């Protein structure tokens, strides 16, 4: 008899994902606190402005290192192919749940893959622009960065944060209330067969055959 559920993410994948995800949320909130006076109160949640300033870059280090681990684990599955391009071409049907007109996908759809690559680029740029702000006096022989390098980094870091924040909203919305059954894949690791058949029919077929 077939098990009722299919394993979607391993224990290690789930840990790494939540390290990336929770550190990103922390960084987004403290970053927003620094971006506008009306949001500065958010620093109170982590112990005040000075503490937020000390923690933000270190949580950034945690984000970067766990992101690298996540990248290495998932990059093999994230190559965009013809199926993904067909899926992306039909994204407006996907958005309105018109499932008959959405091309079937494997373990990940084109949107998920683009999200992966988008966050990879953003993550790299967060780090690149974050370092001059973290240690403007100099970082392992580089710098000092005072002046234009810091100011330009600040602008780019901020704009990417807005973009990354939007991606996060979409990611969390789609992964929770929009598609019931999805969150479990990241909590206990498994999904129902019905869920797999609906969202990732080719992957479901693969799993059923093996």
């Amino acid at each position, binding site marked *: 008899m077939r098990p*009722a559920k299919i394993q979607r993410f391993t224990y290690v994948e789930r840990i790494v994902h939540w390290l990336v995800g929770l550190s990103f949320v922390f960084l987004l909130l403290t970053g*927003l606190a*620094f*971006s*506008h*006076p*009306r*949001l*500065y109160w958010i*620093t109170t949640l982590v112990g*005040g*402005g*000075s503490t*937020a*300033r*000390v923690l933000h870059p270190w949580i950034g280090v945690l984000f970067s290192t766990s992101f690298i681990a996540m990248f290495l684990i998932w990059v093999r599955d994230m190559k965009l192919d013809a199926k993904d391009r067909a899926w992306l071409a039909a994204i407006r049907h996907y*958005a*309105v*749940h018109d*499932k008959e007109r959405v091309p079937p996908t494997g373990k990940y759809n084109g949107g998920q893959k683009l999200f992966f690559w988008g966050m990879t680029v953003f993550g790299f740029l967060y780090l690149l622009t974050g370092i001059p*702000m973290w240690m*403007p*006096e100099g970082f392992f022989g580089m710098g000092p*960065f*005072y*002046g*234009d*390098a*810091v*100011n*330009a980094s*600040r*602008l780019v870091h*901020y*704009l990417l*944060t*807005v973009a990354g*924040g*939007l991606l996060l*909203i*979409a990611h969390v*919305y789609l992964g929770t*209330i*929009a*598609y*019931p*059954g999805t969150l479990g894949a990241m909590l206990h690791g498994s999904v*129902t*067969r*019905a*869920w797999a*058949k*609906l*969202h990732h029919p080719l992957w479901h077929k693969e799993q059923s055959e093996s």
Partner: protein
Amino acid sequence: MPQLTGNGFAIKRISASSEPSPSIRSGPAYAKLVDISRCIGCKGCEVACKEWNELGIEPTENFGSFQSHRDLTPDTWLLMRFNEVEVGEDVEWLIKKDACLHCAEPGCLYACPAPGAIVQYENGIVDFNQDSCIGCQMCVSGCPFDIPRFNPDTRKVYKCNMCVDRVEAGLEPACVKTCPTNAISWGTKEDMLGLADRKVEGLQARGFGEATVYDPAGVGGTHMMYVVPRGDQLEDYDLPANPTASPGALSALQGLKKLGASTLGLGLLAAGLHYLGFGPQEPEEENTP
């Protein structure tokens, strides 16, 4: 909002604040005028600054200059720079009193993300309030004159506060008080501009045809001004010819600071509207074998 100041000065601007200035009073703006041509290089002002502000003594070394120290530090808010420059046949000291210029448009204050960490008073003084400083050092990059200095032990930034406590008591700043040649004057900005013009005229009559007043418009003018004998050689004095309060990236950031929260708010709204419009997509009940 933390306590901003311990004094009774009317406030003009507060860093990282969306509120308008609470001040309903206005009064004269003050200014320091440094007449470089009258400086004899005694460095009494440096000592007076250290004494009044109770800043630590820092050892130095002979590095081939008349200058006492190489650079400003969190404990050295005033440094007389002796720039040795060849002028014609001679070598001259093009002296700069290196300390905060107290800009009318303070780049440090605009760059600061911590509410109340930098305060500008109606009288022109720009003061750092270390209680509220979070040590991010954005002010250092926002300052067009490279003045604020970060102390890694306290994780706060420091600079000249124009002896704000003396000024509150009706006294001149310590460097002004101590200068033996009256190279530094103190008074209302208006009076100091008038005095500067007379000094420039005098210098021009004595053969310094390029003498000028340094009160750069790019930062809205400053509350420490210089009378510069060789006004055509500002860079040699280590005085930027065209300083600006908000370099491109920073002014863009100012303009876009509302973008972040509003864009993310719209993102949440879009997700909510999508959910209301299309609802969850539930998998069909498992009924296949």
